[in-house]
């Protein structure tokens, strides 16, 4: 049956009061940001903060920046999964954060086993161990996401839009609690990496783990790019994202392509899970929630469906989240800004959607999903 496609070209909207209100919000938020930055610069020039503390040193700012970039790389990797799935199916896969968590959990288990066998140290053996952990995490996350797609999403793919969205929230909720039940509430830590990983390198004095995280993220991203842009499967994925029906007419197996898309996104989330383990070392059943939301924010910042944009969005969000509270909120004499770190990330999400809902680098969505 041919589905009737309606043009979603919106009729001219005339809601002046709402527009006015939105403009006010935009202006106010800009003023707040500008004020914070202004105060920050005044503090830096004056040499003391408004509440009497010493202002941030150059080294501290550089440290925050590096932390932001390494976390942002991780967000970017997760964001790729959101972005690709949104590209083909047109809904936010809320459970993607949990796929990432599954990867981090598997990293916790494998790294501890390898540590017990004495492989989590030294130079060469550590790299091999890390590769094993990465491989296991990729397999676990990919399997998790394929299972989710098969069980939860495929049967309801043609339902009204709200249904797959709610289903994905529900799946995410279930996975969190299932993992909590399976592995218990006790805190789970990865073994400490060998000492050469915590040394600082290069003139920027970046910690070894952070360099490693950035390198792994860059390699994964490059691999993904080659896969999507240079292989036949990648081409099929792009075709399905553009128009499922036409792609099917061209002889592409749409179902299989959708599964591949989920799988590739899941693999990236698995890598990100290992990166989380390297950066923070602590894993719990709640691990997936916040990074998941933040990664989605990153995907929106970069433009949903736009892979390069997702990665860039991740970096931007990572830096904003790490530097923002100290740069903008702290100069306004708000105490304990680190508590508001997550609130800042959510605020970034809201502001991005207010200012530029199509993202900084433009969305790439199927024709029917374009708003």
């Amino acid at each position: 049956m041919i589905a009737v496609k309606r043009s979603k070209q919106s009729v001219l909207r005339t809601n002046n009061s709402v527009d006015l209100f939105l403009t006010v919000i935009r202006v106010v938020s800009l003023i707040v940001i500008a004020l914070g930055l202004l105060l920050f610069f005044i503090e830096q020039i004056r040499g003391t903060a408004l509440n009497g503390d010493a202002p941030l040193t150059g080294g501290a700012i550089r440290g925050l920046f590096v932390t932001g970039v390494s976390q942002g790389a991780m967000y970017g990797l997760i964001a790729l999964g959101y972005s690709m799935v949104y590209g083909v199916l047109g809904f936010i896969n809320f459970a993607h954060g949990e796929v990432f968590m599954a990867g981090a959990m598997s990293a916790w288990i494998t790294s501890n086993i390898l540590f017990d066998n004495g492989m989590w140290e030294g130079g060469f053996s550590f790299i091999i161990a890390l590769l094993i952990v990465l491989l296991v995490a990729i397999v676990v996350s990919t399997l998790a996401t394929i299972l989710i797609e098969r069980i939860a999403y495929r049967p309801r793919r043609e339902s009204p839009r709200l249904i797959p969205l709610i289903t994905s929230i529900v799946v995410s909720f279930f996975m969190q609690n299932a993992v909590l039940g399976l592995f218990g509430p006790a805190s789970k830590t990865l073994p400490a990496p060998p000492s050469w990983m915590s040394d600082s390198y290069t003139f920027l004095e970046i910690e070894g783990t952070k360099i490693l995280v950035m390198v792994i993220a860059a390699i994964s991203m490059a691999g993904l790019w080659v896969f999507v842009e240079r292989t036949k499967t990648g081409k099929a994925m792009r075709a399905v994202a553009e128009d499922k029906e036409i792609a099917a007419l061209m002889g592409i197996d749409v179902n299989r392509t959708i599964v591949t898309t989920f799988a590739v996104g899941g693999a990236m989330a698995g890598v990100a899970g290992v990166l989380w383990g390297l950066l923070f070392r602590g894993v719990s059943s709640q691990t997936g929630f916040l990074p998941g939301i933040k990664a989605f924010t990153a995907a929106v910042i970069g433009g949903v469906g736009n892979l390069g944009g997702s990665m860039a969005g991740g970096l931007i969000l990572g830096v904003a989240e790490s530097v923002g509270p100290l740069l903008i909120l702290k100069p306004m004499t708000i105490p304990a800004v680190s508590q508001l770190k997550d609130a800042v990330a959510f605020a970034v999400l809201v502001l991005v959607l207010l200012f530029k809902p199509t993202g900084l680098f433009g969305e790439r969505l199927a024709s029917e999903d374009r708003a």
Partner: protein
Amino acid sequence: MSTRSATDIDPKHSVSVGLIAGISIIFMGLVGLAVGLNERILIDPILSLGYLFLLAVPLGAGYIAANETVLEGMQAPEKGTRDIVAGALAGLAGGAMVGLFLILLDTVDLSEKMPAWGDRLLDMLSFNQGVGGGVVVAALVGTVLGALGGAIHVLKDEPRRVIKIVIISVLSFAILEAIVDDVLGEIGLKPVAKFLYSKSGGLSVLPAILVGIVALGFAIGFKGKGDELKTRYDTMEEAERKQVNKYALIAVVVAAVVLPMLLGKIVNELLANVGLFVLLALGLNIVVGRAGILDIGYVAFFAVGAYGMAVLTTPEAPWRINDTLVHDIFGWLPVLPWLVALPIVVVMTGFVGLLIGTPVIRMRGDYLAIVTLGFGEIIRLLFLSDWLSPTLGGSQGIRNIPGVNVGVTEINGTKPQYVFYLVAVFVAIAIYISHQMETSRIGRAWMAIREDEPVAEAMGINTVTTKLIAFVTGAVLASFSGAIFAAKVGSTFPNSFLLLVSIIILVVVIVGGMGNIPGVILGAVVLIGILGGPKQPGLLAEFSQFKLLIYGALLVFMMLKKPEGLLPNAARTRELHIDEALQDAWLKGDKPSSEDEVATA
């Protein structure tokens, strides 16, 4: 049609059903559900809640394996011994899988990573027979239960119905021990309760059989009476039906007034909690069910309602004591009684609703969902932060919130019965508001927007304003609940307003039936009443540890099999089962020209 041979089964289907059953059992074991609920005895000494969960799986698998898809318009395949064979095969497959798992459980030690991995699980799954015996027993029990499941499928509808009623009655009496005991004690029938329940908990064997016999009597005695009543009601004249509705309403009101007096503290507490969630669910029902706006930060309004009430009515509220800007500006404000503060709280929450709603209302559905989630978390984090703690108490929250002074008495958490009355009044108001709005012009506009926004807009509906009205109405209903919550609990903490609360309210609305008021109420009664709220215990307090997991599993199941909920909204059902509707229409001979026509018919 000739009789089919007993081996005319689809082995692949049976085995795959069996394997899924096996995985489910292993999963239940590994999350600790089986062992955790083994303590709770249902029928002393035969059955515990943990075993009920485990044994129900192969039974269900047998039934499913025996079930064949019946195509509409085709002759249904004959039932017979083949069903039992198919069921037994499924049970055997499941049992074999559990057997393999037992061997794994014995040889590998993963207890360091998985707390449930260990001897207790082994003992339970092998029925204390050790590994070797356990494998045999598991396969045997699986086969027998699978065959039983298949046998239930073979039964005619009538005996199946009777068996169902008997089993459900016995299990309800066993599971609802606490409430039955409470009620019997309250009306002076303590000896009956003593007779029914054994000392170690659970029904004794003899009473269990008696309950079963009584249920059997009822099931046979009242056969078809329900349908009869329904047809009589359906064939009534309009005026007469209205009359009956009125009587039913009066009966409900009387029951709501009288029942709490007869019930004990536990049940009243439960009813009050259910009432609070009914209020929240009714509010979210307008937002999600009616206007189709997926708000997953709904708890924000509950929080604002509770905090608003706490701030206005508490003499020792942090902002009154600490020297802050808020104190300087509003310090003159007297401590208000609950009833006076309520309108202020409502207006305040409505305003917050407007503030949050305006920027998000034009966003695409899924963006809106995630942004509302973000707002919900921002509000909670602000309540929690040191920044606002001189005003709102931070992680210490606001304590010593006075109850509701209604002249004769003060309603607070120590008198759950009065809290229930208070909640009931507001639930009635909420139902009235919801119903009035749904049946009015604005309700039809919501429906139009939910179904197709661009078309609704083209028809001249101001979509932004209409959606905002839904959003704000939902916020106001949540503020009622929050205001009562603050007075009931006597304190507000940021951690009472986790995202989890939003999700559970959403669950209630979905399970009950999105867009349908009775459905939403039923959802709250069933879920919050039985399983319990995010922090509040339900009837099955022993579930508390696994509550969220069960919520999750239930929800996934609902979304896949019955996304329209228990008591669905008619239009929504048609929309979600478009294929079946098309098929039915085709069979009747009228061919609808498009899917849309069926969905809106």
